[in-house]
């Protein structure tokens, strides 16, 4: 199969805005940041705004902490984090995250939402890449020398015809390798020598060869792709990956936020990847190597939450679950927290019925899952300068496996359905103002729209994804100190048994988390209550002969064996009851007490909580 321009369009970063920051996007970002602070004044008991860093352009990286009044302080509750806007082309993701936040804050006191958020905490980072969002570029705009010529960002696409878009330009050239697709008017594809076709056109991004190196627009000021900058399978030295892992203030702030919140149990990311539409791929590596996918023992979580997602949103389709340097793979593989990633823009399943070409195509499996850094780089690399370069060669290889056509058709159909004439701009003649080229035609697919959510879908997406998000709060682990029973073995000698249970759905630690030893585990301690304080309960050999002491059993036990809902752990001790102090069991996480229970004295009922 011959790669078409649509193929190329579908995998390249979108539209390059003019060099200067486009005012509407920048204004929208500023307004959203201001709006977050405004929400606090409206909901002071439910919302706090925390600043976790500043972007390269000194924009604040704001996290909204939503915790409704409840018995347990916000920091001690199991928590869920929602991240949006790592990809600067997806401003609509940020808008939806904020709309969801506003919706949540308005919840009635007795509503399900309010009840959920009285026992758990929701963090929302809606504008994870404010500089990129303000400019509509995938990266964060950091200085970057894409073509390695010693100069940074010196050859960006331009809007030559002044129509507000930087699309594509074509001109007839003896060395051209592209033709207009006879089956799709206006669309360009590579000529196929096997069909005796000969290339007629050169196709490039719209713009000058600003650095006079005979390559067009190969070094745009796109910056570092934050979704290449995280530490899991970090694609060091690959295009857009940054100078080093976590080199960007935005990715570093987010990584620090996650690592500094030990009660985070789930993360959701709105972006370009997806691991919910299908059960994602499991790790294929053996032994002690960085995993390339999810451990088999953790797949059930993704499988079940994927079902929940599909039910809540009515979506179907295929995963797009890339790993190298991605935020969601890092959250799972380095933080031990399930991270659900989803693309709010969704063109695949609906187009299936509408596009006649799609039905002719063999359903294909996307090859992108867990591919290596070299392949991954191509997907979001800055525009290839010339058709026939490595990118096209790779595409050809992919296309020859028949892997892309159906997606392209779906994308085009979806764009035309939602954007009509804006989806594809007809080629228009334009005088090229410099060099040997005299005339060009400018036009092509307006693929930037693939990152925008159609107005008609925004409300539904906001609502059904909010339903999904809130339903996740019901699945947090909830470790409780259950029944405590005691039996007198001899005068003053008591045997005690306690039950610690997980009343939540998620285990406190999923499989990979047990390897990582995070998030922090609850622990049960046997202590001596003295007035309002607790003292260590000494083992008999260290205690005075008349003191309350521990005869058998550990002073402290990490509760490491709890799994999903209903699993429990039984612990036993023997105490010598002395004259002073009340032996007590404390269930703690870190230095926070989750529950306490006085040991029932012989012939007495169980003590109450404290």
């Amino acid at each position, binding site marked *: 199969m011959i790669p078409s321009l649509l193929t190329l369009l579908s995998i390249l970063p979108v539209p390059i805005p003019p060099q200067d920051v486009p005012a509407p996007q920048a204004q929208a970002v500023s307004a959203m940041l201001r709006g977050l602070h405004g929400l606090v004044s409206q909901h002071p008991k439910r919302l706090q705004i925390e600043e976790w860093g500043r972007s390269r352009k000194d924009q604040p990286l704001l996290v909204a902490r939503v915790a409704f009044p409840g018995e347990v302080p916000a920091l001690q509750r199991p928590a869920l984090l929602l991240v949006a806007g790592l990809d600067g082309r997806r401003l609509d993701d940020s808008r939806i995250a904020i709309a969801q936040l506003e919706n949540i804050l308005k919840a009635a006191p007795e509503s399900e939402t309010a009840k959920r958020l009285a026992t758990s905490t929701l963090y929302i980072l809606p504008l994870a890449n404010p500089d990129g969002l303000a400019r509509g570029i995938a990266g964060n705009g950091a200085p970057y020398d894409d073509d*390695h010529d010693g100069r940074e960002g010196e050859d960006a696409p331009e809007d030559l015809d002044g129509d507000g878009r930087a699309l594509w330009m074509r001109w007839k050239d003896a060395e051209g390798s592209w033709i207009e697709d006879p089956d799709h008017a206006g669309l360009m594809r590579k000529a196929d020598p096997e069909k005796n076709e000969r290339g007629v056109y050169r196709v490039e991004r719209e713009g000058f060869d600003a650095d*006079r*190196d005979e*390559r067009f627009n190969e070094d745009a000021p796109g910056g570092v792709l934050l979704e290449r900058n995280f530490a899991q399978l970090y694609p*060091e030295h690959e295009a857009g990956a940054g100078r080093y892992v*976590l080199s960007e203030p935005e990715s570093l702030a987010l990584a620090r936020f996650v690592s500094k919140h030990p009660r985070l149990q789930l993360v959701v990311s709105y972006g370009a990847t997806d691991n919910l539409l299908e059960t994602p791929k499991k790790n294929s590596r053996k032994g002690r190597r960085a995993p390339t996918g999810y451990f088999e023992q953790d797949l059930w979580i993704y499988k079940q939450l994927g079902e929940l997602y599909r039910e809540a949103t009515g979506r179907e389709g295929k995963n797009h679950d890339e790993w190298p340097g991605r935020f969601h793979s890092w959250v799972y593989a380095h933080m031990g927290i399930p991270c659900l990633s989803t693309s709010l823009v969704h063109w695949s399943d609906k187009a299936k019925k509408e596009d006649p070409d799609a039905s002719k195509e063999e359903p294909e499996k996307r090859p992108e899952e867990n591919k290596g850094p070299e392949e991954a780089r191509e997907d979001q690399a800055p525009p290839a300068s010339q058709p026939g370069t490595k990118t096209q060669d790779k595409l050809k290889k992919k296309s020859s496996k028949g892997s892309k056509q159906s997606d392209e058709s779906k994308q085009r159909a979806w764009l035309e359905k939602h954007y009509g004439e804006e989806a594809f701009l007809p080629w228009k003649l334009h005088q090229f103002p410099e060099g040997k080229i005299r005339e060009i035609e400018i036009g092509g697919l307006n693929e930037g729209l693939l990152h925008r959510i159609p107005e008609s879908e925004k409300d539904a997406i906001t609502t059904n994804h909010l339903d999904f998000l809130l339903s996740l709060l019901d699945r947090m682990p909830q470790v409780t100190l259950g029944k405590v029973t005691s039996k007198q073995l001899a005068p003053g000698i008591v045997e005690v048994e306690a039950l610690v249970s997980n009343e939540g759905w998620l285990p406190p630690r999923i499989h990979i988390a047990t390897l990582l030893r995070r998030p922090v585990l609850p622990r049960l301690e046997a202590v001596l209550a003295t007035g309002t304080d607790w003292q*260590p309960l000494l083992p008999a050999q260290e205690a005075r002969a008349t003191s309350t002491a521990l005869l058998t059993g*550990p002073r*402290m036990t*990490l509760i490491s064996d709890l799994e999903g809902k209903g699993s429990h752990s039984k612990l036993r001790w023997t105490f010598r009851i002395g004259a002073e102090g009340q032996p007590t069991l404390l269930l703690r996480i870190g230095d926070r007490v989750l529950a306490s229970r006085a040991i029932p004295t012989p012939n007495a009922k169980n003590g109450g909580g404290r």
Partner: protein
Amino acid sequence: MNPLRHTVRALPLLLPLLLPAVTATTLAAQGEADLIAPTGIEAMSWDRFRDYKGIVELMQAMQKRWPDNITLTPIGKSVQGRTLWVMTVNDPKTGEHSTKPAMYVDANIHGNEVQGAEAALYMVWYLLRFAPRVPRLQKILSTRVFYIIPSVNPDGRDYWFHKANTASSSRSGQEPVDSDGDGLFDEDPPNDLDKDGHITMMRKKVPMGEGSFRIDPADPRIMIRVGRGEKGDYNFLGSEGIDDDGDGRINEDGPGGYDPNRDWGSDWQPGWLQRGARPLPFGLPESRAVRDFLLAHPNVAGVQAYHNAGGMILRGPGSQYVKYASGDKRPYDIIGKKGEELIPFYRYMVLWDDLYTVHGGFVDWTYMGLGILSFTNELWARTRMDQGRKKLDRAASTKLGGDLSFDSHIVPWKEYEHPLYGKIEIGGSVKNSGRMPPSFLIQEMLHRNSAFVLYQTEELPEVTLAKTTVTSAGKDLYYVDVVLENKRVTPTRTAQATTKKIGKPDFLLVTSTTPKVLQASRFRDAFRKNQGSPLPKAIQATRIPIEEGIPSRGKLRIRYLVQGKGTLRLTYEAEKAKNLNFEIEIH
């Protein structure tokens, strides 16, 4: 005063100091040695190690003695707020430091591995002291630059100096870590139970046959592991300590608890794959300060990061699956094998293959991330105690050490009532023994390692003009051939930098406007000058990027086609070599 309070005088202190020799015969053999007794800092002895304050004072004293050549610059703070100082060593008469190839030397990334700081500073002291009368040293000083960070883990250094420790505790810095995963930080450290200022060992006598050790009948200080069929009456219980947090384990969550040499961003892996890794790469302020310094100094072309013990000259890769660019093996091997010559008992080794796997190690990052040839010397080689005459087992080595140090490195066993184990004995080696040389061997160790680092420094890239020729190509047209040479072992761009496009490529620039340069091509040798294809149109002939630089002991050959006569001015520009400006007359 407790001598451990400010300095550690490595044991024993009984032998004469090995200052430069004093006899005329020796002077003749060692051209740099003094005829007249030196004074001031030049007379200082190198037979001991210093705490952080002592190191900073020494740096300041050196800067005061050689103010033209030494600059001290703070680059950041440690976890506990100690300043990280960089000592820049340069000859300003020959240019700004940033214009010359630089050797970066640091040490003490592991808190207990203190001796590298003295090794780094000894080299500077030796260089500046003797350069005025030793031409080879003078050339190094005038053409190269050094960036020295004697301690990249000053918190760990002072923790080791001023707290009870073993020779191996603690590699970490001092940021609290929940090492045992119970949500508490540093709550179960080793305990100096007998309050003697050392963390030694605990042993317990058990009925004969229940132990794994017995006392050496020839030397009661030494414990021998019993063999199959033998009976023992002692068991070791680990380092001195109690179960502070009541979890049934002893000393499992001491101060810090991470490994700063697993914090670097190339092939970094989380804790379950790499013990000692922090939650995030570059997670420590010390690492970030060093990282930012190196990124801001692209002229660094060689790295030495001193460690403590083993007698090794190590290079990466740290992992089997990481492949170093094959083109860099030769320069690595030349430098490493030279090290084996200069430092007896040292072996040139590849980390993962000859020692163990390291993910996220410093020298892996400086090579993989920055494209710099990087080494780690493990300084103390125990074999030096017997000078390689015979290979001693551990017991014999301990005995020899005892005889040479008059048993000052041993804390005799004494009884102690332990809260968990009952009656035990505490004793063993002190911290400043075993993993560092005794005082009488310190200076030689420092000197030989400095000679190795100075060798690597000499072999940093140096671009010279090997040959130019001008030949007629017809009316008013000329071929101008330029051959540039790097006689040094280190390439101007390593294969790693080339393949991964790290840093800026070198450039050959034509800075004059006449005569007009029409085209440029590369040629292989003098016999095939016209066979090289013109450089791609995308490359301007007046600004040729040389992505692969000039190789180790190699040449670069460029042919220009120019029109007209006059003076052609050119510059070879390289991040890791001094720029070379030259002119070619065409007449």
